[in-house]
């Protein structure tokens, strides 16, 4: 055989295999080609205690697809055998049309002839995934596990098959596209992202050079059972149902950019194999083994299977703490049943400064129960995922608590992710239902978001049909409850079942889905209640999405100010005051960006507005650091309020808390220089009630590898443990492994240190740490020093060059901003250098830009990774590219 990149010379083998397939004449013998890494194993033999990986390629690839698994398997001590299916790759051309059932038999014949004894883990891709599942289904006694990559086992006959497949199956296209030309091959190879190298592409094409050798490709396509009458339809269905009862460990590794084997097929497989570990490589496509580290992930997973058996029911490796549990709606139902029944529970403000809509506790509870019942009647079931695209307010509150009572899992991806980010997020969760406002439903139609659609308001029939909307929340609320499902909600619920998938802001890579159980959501509720002393009788203005939903759970009256909550900068001082006045609010939740605008519009406040704001006793602002000067200015319009800026993230909110007085004390400690460790970062205070924080110190390369510690002045990744930390990431097995690699702790990806008073100082993101020849540098402290310069409004400190010898670069936004990106003036560079020196860092270069890229949600988190890549190009010489 020719030598190919990535294939060891000893791996390629041929074997004559007697056939028992129906399609072959009795006594037929077929010659198989396969890759086998046994010669690369220690002693040239397989470890009898380890299963053999049996890899089955799809169409139109061949065993070459699995070369990285053979390499990684050899290193991990596993025998990996990758076959070329008959009529494919370098195996013989049998001259008959082999269908699915034949191919499963073929694989069994091969395994027998090859003398592979012991346990087997099947690995499949594309149509090879189906064949491998067929083998798994029929050979359970020797099956040790199942690995699937971009494949499918079932197609809902009611739905159209993916367009590219329809095209390939079309009689006018089929033979021509798959056999007579290399079109199908080329299109498949072009799906790789990033592109295949020419050598690898040639290797994939090597066995398919002429039309005669491509007959198998055409037959494979023709064997796709696109309708129930197809001969392979029944065998396929048998396998599809059969795998439901497989209880071996399973792993699914997916490239979601695949135009054919998209998330809907992954979702189907997940329902058949609910215990499977799943990782979606967000940027990968169909040839996922080419696009992402499938081999590394697979063997990491295998290594873990050996260590800790997974509970097949939940996929959890630990049993949850079954302490006292009260559901999220406990206080809501109590307040609705008591003296408080007629008191306001939740309200929305209108544009005119008056309440637009309000529900009493009794009305809220009744609405929630009615909606839960009618959603159930519509088909919503426990565990169904429901994407909510409704802005915070009365509607969202009702929908949310109805879903919680039903045991449906809410999916929240806010508009702050941008349309593309939101689309990726929604698709990754394959929601069963989508409840949304008009704008969201238009996007759902246009972008092909899955799920049955429900609008908030009733829509005209034409629009309803156009957007495929079944009904509306308004209609569901008027329906007569039929089954009273909500009445048994508390007794029927499982506290450790999934309750919500919330998406991260995506400021550090694609947004990640964060899964919370009911117990963890109530943990968040209890932490917020006890840390900030919130309880029934309080009124809160909810201008910050994540906390806006907690009102009924806390038993507080909540009101949504007149603003676009997805665009925080639309909250005016007067709108905030009107909302506060409407319910005599004492508590305000608002994002830092919203508060900026409140300050900017302070002049327009009416005397009544000022009066209302002067009754506020507590302000919470989370999501991004809030500068001390902003809080000081806010104190003028909220004179009685304690101004808190809790620190946390989508995976755990809040983690720690600090108020303005404590921020001032911390600043004073920095100036005085008397408290060891005070400074170099943003002080975020002490852990909130029930939360523990430890650090994993950084090594010279900036990786958090050190033993967990709480010693002051040691910089490390921040780890948190609390009842309200997320359960896991959604379909990101690898990410979850990394974040939870210290059992019981969540790795936040932030770096920081403690000072001698036990306060935590956040120094930036782990991924933004610089590794210079003089040691590791975290960006925030240096940025603060630069932002202390008179005319600098925002600074990013990034490293260019190889890890370990990076040069430190400051990228500044000035006031007024420079019109063009480029080198800073000599004077500014000198000032920046001396400011950085005062923070202990020598700058190699100082650049100025008109603006820095920040996250959409908070407009505060700088995308330093992007800035670093840009700076690297600028400082390499040549023209200045766009940032």
């Amino acid at each position, binding site marked *: 055989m020719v030598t190919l990149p990535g294939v060891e010379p000893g791996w390629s083998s041929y074997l004559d295999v007697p056939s028992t397939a129906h399609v072959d004449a009795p006594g037929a013998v077929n010659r198989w080609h396969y890759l086998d890494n046994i010669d690369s194993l220690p002693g040239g033999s397989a470890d009898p205690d380890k299963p053999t990986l049996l890899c089955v390629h799809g169409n139109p690839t061949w065993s070459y697809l699995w070369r990285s698994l053979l390499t990684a398997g050899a290193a991990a001590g596993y025998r990996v055998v990758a076959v070329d299916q008959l009529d494919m790759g370098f195996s013989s051309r049998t001259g008959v049309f082999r269908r699915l059932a034949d191919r499963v038999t073929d694989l069994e014949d091969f395994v027998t002839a090859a003398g592979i004894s012991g346990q087997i883990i099947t690995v499949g891709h594309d149509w090879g995934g189906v064949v491998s599942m067929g083998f798994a289904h029929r050979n359970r006694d020797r099956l040790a596990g199942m690995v699937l990559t971009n494949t499918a086992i079932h197609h809902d006959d009611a739905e159209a098959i993916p367009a590219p497949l329809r095209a390939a199956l079309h009689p006018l296209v089929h033979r021509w596209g798959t056999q007579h030309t290399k079109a199908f091959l080329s299109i498949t190879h072009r799906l790789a992202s990033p592109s295949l190298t020419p050598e690898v592409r040639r290797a994939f094409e090597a066995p398919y050079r002429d039309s005669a050798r491509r007959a198998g490709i055409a037959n494979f396509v023709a064997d796709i059972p696109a309708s129930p009458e197809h001969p392979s339809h029944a065998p396929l269905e048998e396998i599809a149902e059969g795998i439901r009862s497989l209880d071996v460990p399973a792993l699914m590794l997916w490239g979601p950019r695949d135009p054919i084997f998209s998330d809907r097929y992954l979702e189907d497989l997940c329902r058949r194999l609910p215990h499977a570990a799943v990782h979606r490589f967000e940027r990968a496509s169909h040839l996922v083994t080419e696009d992402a580290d499938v081999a590394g992930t697979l063997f990491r997973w295998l290594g873990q299977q050996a260590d800790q058996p997974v509970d097949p029911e939940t996929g959890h490796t630990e049993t949850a703490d079954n302490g006292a549990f009260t559901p999220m709606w406990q206080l809501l139902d109590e307040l609705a049943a008591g003296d408080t029944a007629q008191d306001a529970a939740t309200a929305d403000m209108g544009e005119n400064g008056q309440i637009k809509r309000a529900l009493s506790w009794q009305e809220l509870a009744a609405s929630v129960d009615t909606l839960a019942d009618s959603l159930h009647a519509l088909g919503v079931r426990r565990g169904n995922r429901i994407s909510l695209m409704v802005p915070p307010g009365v509607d969202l509150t009702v929908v949310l608590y109805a879903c919680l009572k039903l045991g449906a899992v809410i999916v929240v991806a806010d508009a702050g992710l941008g349309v593309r980010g939101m689309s990726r997020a929604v698709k990754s969760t394959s929601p069963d239902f989508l409840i949304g406002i008009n704008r969201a439903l238009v996007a759902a139609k246009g972008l092909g978001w899955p799920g049955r659609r429900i609008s908030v308001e009733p829509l005209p029939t034409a629009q309803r049909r156009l957007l495929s909307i079944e009904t509306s929340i308004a209609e569901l609320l008027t329906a007569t409850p039929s089954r009273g499902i909500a009445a048994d909600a508390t007794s029927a619920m499982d506290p450790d079942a999934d309750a919500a998938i919330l998406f991260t802001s995506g400021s550090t890579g694609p947004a990640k889905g964060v899964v919370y159980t009911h117990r963890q959501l109530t943990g968040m509720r209890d932490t917020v209640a006890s840390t900030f002393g919130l309880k029934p009788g309080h009124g809160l203005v909810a201008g910050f999405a994540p906390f806006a939903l907690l009102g009924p759970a806390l038993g507080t009256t909540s009101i949504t100010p007149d603003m676009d909550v997805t665009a925080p900068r639309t909250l005016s001082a007067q709108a905030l005051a009107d909302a506060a006045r409407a319910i005599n609010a004492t508590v305000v939740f608002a994002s830092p960006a919203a508060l900026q605008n409140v300050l900017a519009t302070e002049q327009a406040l009416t005397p009544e507005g000022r009066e209302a704001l002067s009754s506020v006793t507590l302000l919470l602002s989370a999501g991004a650091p809030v500068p001390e000067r902003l809080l000081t200015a806010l104190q003028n319009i909220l004179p009685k309020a304690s101004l808190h800026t809790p620190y946390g993230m989508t995976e755990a909110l809040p983690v720690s808390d600090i108020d303005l007085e404590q921020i001032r004390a911390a600043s004073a400690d920095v100036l005085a220089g008397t408290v060891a460790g005070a400074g170099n970062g943003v002080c975020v205070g002490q852990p909130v009630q029930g939360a523990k924080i430890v650090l994993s110190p950084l090594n010279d390369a900036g990786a958090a590898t050190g033993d967990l510690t709480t010693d002051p002045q040691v910089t490390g990744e921040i780890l948190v443990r609390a009842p309200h930390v997320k359960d896991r990431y959604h379909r990101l097995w690898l990410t979850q492994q990394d974040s939870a690699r210290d059992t019981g702790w969540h790795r936040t990806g932030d770096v920081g240190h403690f000072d001698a008073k036990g306060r935590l100082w956040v120094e930036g993101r782990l991924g933004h740490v610089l590794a210079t020849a003089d040691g590791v540098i975290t960006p925030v402290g240096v940025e603060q020093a630069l932002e202390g310069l008179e005319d600098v409004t925002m600074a990013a400190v990034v490293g*260019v060059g190889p890890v370990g010898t990076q040069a430190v670069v400051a990228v500044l936004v000035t006031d007024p901003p420079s019109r063009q990106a480029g080198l800073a003036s000599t004077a500014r560079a000198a000032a920046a250098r001396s400011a950085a020196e005062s923070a202990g860092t020598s700058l190699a*270069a100082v*650049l100025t830009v008109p603006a820095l890229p920040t996250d959409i949600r908070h407009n505060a988190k700088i995308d330093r990774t992007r800035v670093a890549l840009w700076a690297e190009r600028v400082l*390499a*010489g040549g023209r200045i590219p766009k940032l």
Partner: protein
Amino acid sequence: MRVLVTGASGLLGGAAAARILAAGHNVRTFQRRPSRVEGAEDVAGSITDPRAVASAVEGMDAVVHLAAKVSVTGPLEDFRRVNVDGTRLLLDTARTAGVRNFLFISSPSVAHTGTAISGDGAGAATPELARGHYSATKAEAELAVLAADSSHFQTAALRPHIVWGPGDTQLVERVLARATSGRLPLLDSGAALIDTTYIDNAASAIAAALERMDSIHGRALVVTNGEPRPIGELLAGICAAGGVSGPRLRLPGGVARAAGAVVEKAWEAFGLKDEPPLTRFLAEQMSTAHWFDQRQTQELLGWKPEVSIDEGLRRLKAHYGG
């Protein structure tokens, strides 16, 4: 230790000889013009003259070889005669004479192919890819020196990158002369990140290398200040120190490189002796990053630069009476 320093009439050679002397060694200098290094035995002669070279190396324990033809234009044969043949002659003569250590002062341009270098180590010299006659011949010489390394005749190469300081005619004087005549271009944005070496640091690195030949022999090491700066900022700093206004001309790097190549050929074709306004080499040097990983160098030499760029600029300013 008795040490021969060639090319000691140059800025770096003189400074290195003085530094080695200060470390307590006996120094003999060898070059065409008097070195005027105080305390050294001064021998005049050409590096291409076998007899002069033989008498220069006689009785020496170590050789530090800096003598070279340094220019941006001129016929290849001239460069080859001095930089390759001269080095081979000195190398062979020293080995025969029983010299134990041979330190070759080279240049990072021996491994520079025109693309940006950001934090790399010292790659192998590539004469066939090096840009310009100087770099190509230095590359060839460096390969010959390192190939000669053995347990009884230890050879090593040190590559200081862009040495500058008071009295420097290679960089500082040229920059100032061009800036004065308005011919100092800033290519592209002037943001290319460049490593340089202040003269005292280059000299102390050479002296340190001489003490560490047992651990560095067989290797080439790049030496810099370890403080890369954008080229625009460096030029402005040098101009400010020299009391002239900074670069005014702005050229796109690609245009400058093309123009430099044309000018270079023209100067060569017409046998012009004075320096061309722009060469391709210079254009590349000024428009692409070259800064280096200094960790290995500093560790192997047990050395750190003593004078920072800012301090160097202050000294330069003082030198020009500012």
